[in-house]
């Protein structure tokens, strides 16, 4: 690892489409062999960034190096070293499983001797043994996704870009998919993955949170949970959840409130002081609190906290 360049280096990257700034001056680095998560809501600029890194879009300004190669200057050299899975399924539905694999082995220039072995590996990896001669269009979403991953790594790229690989896939397939990602990372492949599933973000070694084209936080999942939250987190279970949420959003001493399943999550500066205050505050409004306690934040809390804080600050400035 020593002396080798970082797998991905992004410096002051900007991408504008007309008046719209999709990526607004972002910088980050991803090390070799790590699972690098790019997290954010829809339209945050995740896909745009990943497309720039794959040489599919030209950046407006700034610099992006993939495997030490400048993507804007030498996109073709970058493409030798990467595998890419786009957000929308983009293999050929009218080709059979085996035909898609053979085609992409050809496109990546995998030599004939290697190709047979890699294709066999990909079929096994995707769990498609016995389905080689099915039309790709007839496969279920989970299989399609694993086949797409298989096609993207036939040439053993050191870096793999996966753009929302698990969207629209059932939970079991999602877990299978993440097992594959981990296996690749164990073999030294850098996996750059975007997602808006917060639970998936927990599987990453490092995360960058992006919102409206800007990085709002970065670090390991644990670091993010500890550092990025401004305040502490309370779990509140009560009746009349909707009414309680409305009331608490106005309440003094509560930074933020959001619904999580059947309960509420509150961000407060000091949990111990806030617990009795919240109980009384809700009691005065006829809401019965059945449970209230401090909890460790999940990434989803972190994300909601960071993005809404940002929105609130902007409102204050305006």
């Amino acid at each position, binding site marked *: 690892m020593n002396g080798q360049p970082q797998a991905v280096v992004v410096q002051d990257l900007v991408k504008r489409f007309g008046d719209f700034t999709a990526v607004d001056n972002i910088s980050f680095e991803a090390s070799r062999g790590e699972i690098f998560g790019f997290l954010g809501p829809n339209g945050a600029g995740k896909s745009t960034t990943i497309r720039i890194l794959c040489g599919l879009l030209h950046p407006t300004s700034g610099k992006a190096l993939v495997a030490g190669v400048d993507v804007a200057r030498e*996109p073709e050299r970058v493409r030798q070293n990467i595998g890419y899975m*786009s957000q929308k399924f983009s293999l050929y539905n009218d*080709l059979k499983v085996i035909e898609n694999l053979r085609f992409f*082995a050809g*496109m990546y220039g995998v030599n004939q001797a290697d190709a047979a072995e890699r294709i066999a590996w990909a079929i096994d990896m995707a769990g498609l043994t016995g389905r080689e001669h099915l039309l790709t269009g007839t496969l279920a979403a989970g299989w399609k996704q694993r086949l797409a991953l298989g096609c993207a790594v036939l040439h053993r790229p050191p870096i793999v870009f996966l753009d929302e690989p698990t969207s629209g896939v059932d939970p079991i397939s999602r877990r299978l998919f993440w097992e594959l990602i981990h296996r690749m990372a164990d073999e030294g492949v850098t996996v750059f993955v975007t997602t808006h599933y917060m639970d998936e973000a927990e599987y990453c070694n490092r995360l960058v949170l992006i919102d409206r084209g800007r990085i709002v936080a970065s670090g390991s999942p644990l670091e993010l949970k500890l550092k990025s939250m401004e305040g502490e987190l309370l779990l509140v279970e009560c009746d009349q959840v909707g009414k309680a949420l409305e009331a608490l959003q106005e309440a003094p001493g509560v930074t933020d409130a959001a619904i999580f399943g059947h309960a509420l999550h509150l961000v407060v500066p000091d949990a111990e002081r806030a617990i009795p205050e919240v109980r009384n505050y809700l009691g005065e409004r006829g809401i019965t609190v059945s449970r209230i306690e401090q909890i460790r934040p999940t990434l989803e809390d972190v994300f909601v906290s960071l993005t809404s804080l940002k929105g609130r600050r902007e409102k204050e400035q305006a």
Partner: protein
Amino acid sequence: MNWNRLCAMARKEMIQIRRDARSIGIVIAMPIVMLFAFGYGVSFDTKHIPVYVYDQEQSQASRDFLKRFESSRYFNVVRSVGNYPELVHAVDAGTCQIGLVIPPDFSARLGSGEQVRIQAIFDGTDSNSASLGMSYTEAVAQAHSQKLQLDWLRARGQGSVRAPLSVDSRTWFNENLESMVTIVPGVVAMVMAVVGTFLTSLTVAREWERGTMEQLISTPVTPLEIMLGKLLPYVAIGLIDTSVCAIMAVWWFEVPFRGHIWVFLLSTTLFLTVVLSLGYFFSVVAKTQLAASQISLIATFLPAFLLSGFVYPIDQMPAVVQGITHIVPARYYMAILRNVFLKGSSVFNMWQDFFGLALFAAILGLAATRIFRKKLT
């Protein structure tokens, strides 16, 4: 350029063509349907023009005259009517294109050596048929007059009278002057102009529409490999299509093929390079299958139909239009095919047409390699 990548690309295109019913329809049915539609639909021969007759005399002499119309393959005497309004009505209604009126004093005037005036009414809504009908009618009347004159002279003892001039006509290359013989090779050229461009106009646009392009351009494949990989299967298909059309022309439409097969294949390959590149170009620019296929139909069909010499002879067009025909590649191919089929010309006889075709093949082929960018927009 990587040979394996090119082969993988071409193989994939071939599989997709095979699996797509619409592609197969375009590849197989369209050329044959067009060949028959134009081969039979476009005819410049005027035959069996429907004629109504109002014979006011109904004598042996008038019937002899009308018999000449009946025995000519250019006319079809449909009916004899009893009054003038009925004749006018038939022309109005379009049930006949020519109305002939024989005067009541037909034989009387003939007998006294006076000139007989026959009225002929033509439906001028189709000026081409009308003028042809007119000259045919005049020719029939002329021939009959000549015969009457000779009869008259012979009756007066001038037994060895002969017409002073006679032309012995021989039409080369198309002995029976059948327009189908010139039309069908032209149809082959036109069909390939339209089908060729149409075929490739879908290839790139389809990948953009289905989203497969994004994956494809993330691989190290080069634009040249994409283009050649996509065009080569269609060159093969185009050669087969053209050959099928040519075989149909000879076997079904009985058009002679006097030239050399290599001249035919060489010119066809050049022309396919032109039209397939053009279709590819449209496909890259338009990005949707609908737009690309419409542009390609408009850009090829009308010029190939009107400006290639298919319908109107180029040397009879106004000078400006003649100039424009030089940028219609179908013009060169049309001329080559007609010459190969009917005259058996060699490449050297037609070097100008070959030069024009090769020039367009080079320009459009090069443009096609340059147009595609491996970028999203």
